[in-house]
């Protein structure tokens, strides 16, 4: 067994408490002098390390670790190791799933949620769509009504799956597999939509402040409209469903266009010497991206829910 790195390799002239003078320096006179063997002493400030006879090789004597001071130091070192290990794991995980960023999107409260839901259903009277920024990111959704959040999309997604199960159960089309199929389908469409948006943003070389999580948030707002339309379809069947769908599509398009206009289109004109390098085609690309993001929502809303509405009751 090789000597571990800690405690430090065998050094008979060093004491266990660093900083003290080696206790035997004054006794060294050119001969190999054996330091006095360890004896249990109540004075722990000058501890002579015990050592094995020279022919046995190096090993940690068990009495070394039984001393309270060494045990304390060893435990503290062990705890420091564990702490740094946890930190390292956290850092590695952070590269793949940004946990600290996700916490920002869930910093919501009831007031924000109610106002945002009202905004999703009736955005026509809201006038100020700008976003306030802190040092390096937008203000938390708790304090800024226009900031995107992930709480509403997540809850709306789960509610959508449950409402789908409910509606299918009312039509006697329910099996437990249907729930997982619905959840997986909706998730797959959301992932696909976000991948398409990311690739589009990369290809057209548009620089925005939108992160991936922002796109996930904006893509998840459509589930609120889907739930509303499907619930309407319970009462009024096909006409109710289409009326609800059209109204929610219009309000969602309006909401997304006004919200994303602030983030995608350049704000105002900045008279700077960069003008020769600014290209007007960037504006056109940004507008197309905006219209694409907003326009794909109604289509997806319809695709994800039209199979849930009940066929009209045959008049007999």
């Amino acid at each position, binding site marked *: 067994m090789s000597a571990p790195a800690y405690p430090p390799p065998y050094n008979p002239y060093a004491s266990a408490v660093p900083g003290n003078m080696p206790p035997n320096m004054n006794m060294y006179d050119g001969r190999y002098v054996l330091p006095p063997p360890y004896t249990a002493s109540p004075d722990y400030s000058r501890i002579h390390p015990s050592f094995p006879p020279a022919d046995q090789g190096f090993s940690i004597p068990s009495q070394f670790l039984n001393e309270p001071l060494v045990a304390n130091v060893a435990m503290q070192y062990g705890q420091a190791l564990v702490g740094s290990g946890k930190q390292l794991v956290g850092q590695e995980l952070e590269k793949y799933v940004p946990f600290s960023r996700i916490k920002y999107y869930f910093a919501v409260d009831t007031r924000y949620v109610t106002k945002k839901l009202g905004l999703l259903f009736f955005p026509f009277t809201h006038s100020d769509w700008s976003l306030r920024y802190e040092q390096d990111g937008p203000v938390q959704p708790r304090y800024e009504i226009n900031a995107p959040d992930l709480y509403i999309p997540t809850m709306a997604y789960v509610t959508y799956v449950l409402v789908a199960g409910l509606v299918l159960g009312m039509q006697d089309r329910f099996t437990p597999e249907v729930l997982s*199929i619905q959840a*997986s389908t909706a*998730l797959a469409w959301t*992932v696909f939509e976000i991948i398409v948006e990311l690739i589009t943003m990369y*290809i*057209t070389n548009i620089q925005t402040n939108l992160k991936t999580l922002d796109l996930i948030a904006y893509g998840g707002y459509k589930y609120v409209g889907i739930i509303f339309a499907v619930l309407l379809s319970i009462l009024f069947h096909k006409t109710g469903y289409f009326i609800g769908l059209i109204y929610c599509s219009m309000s969602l398009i309006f909401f997304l266009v006004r919200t994303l206009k602030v983030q995608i289109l350049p704000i105002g004109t900045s008279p700077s010497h960069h003008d020769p390098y600014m290209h007007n085609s960037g504006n056109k690309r940004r507008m197309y991206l905006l219209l694409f993001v907003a326009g794909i929502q109604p289509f997806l809303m319809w695709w994800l829910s039209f199979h849930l509405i009940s066929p009209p009751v045959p008049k007999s």
Partner: protein
Amino acid sequence: MAFTLWNLLEATLLCLNAVCILHEERFLVKMGWGANQNIQGFGEQPSVRSQVFNLVRSIRTVMRSKYLSILCY
């Protein structure tokens, strides 16, 4: 209709495969889609075509890299 996550994974895999097996010298150059054929200024914005070529090229490089092939074993 049931376009589940598994179907998405399959479609992604097939698309990635299609991107990788397009041989550059045999097809793309002849069709004018080679990676070295675009001349662009330094300060201008890269065109859509050059971005697409860069994307295809980088996907191909990543998929053919040694690190990924080690994953197969």
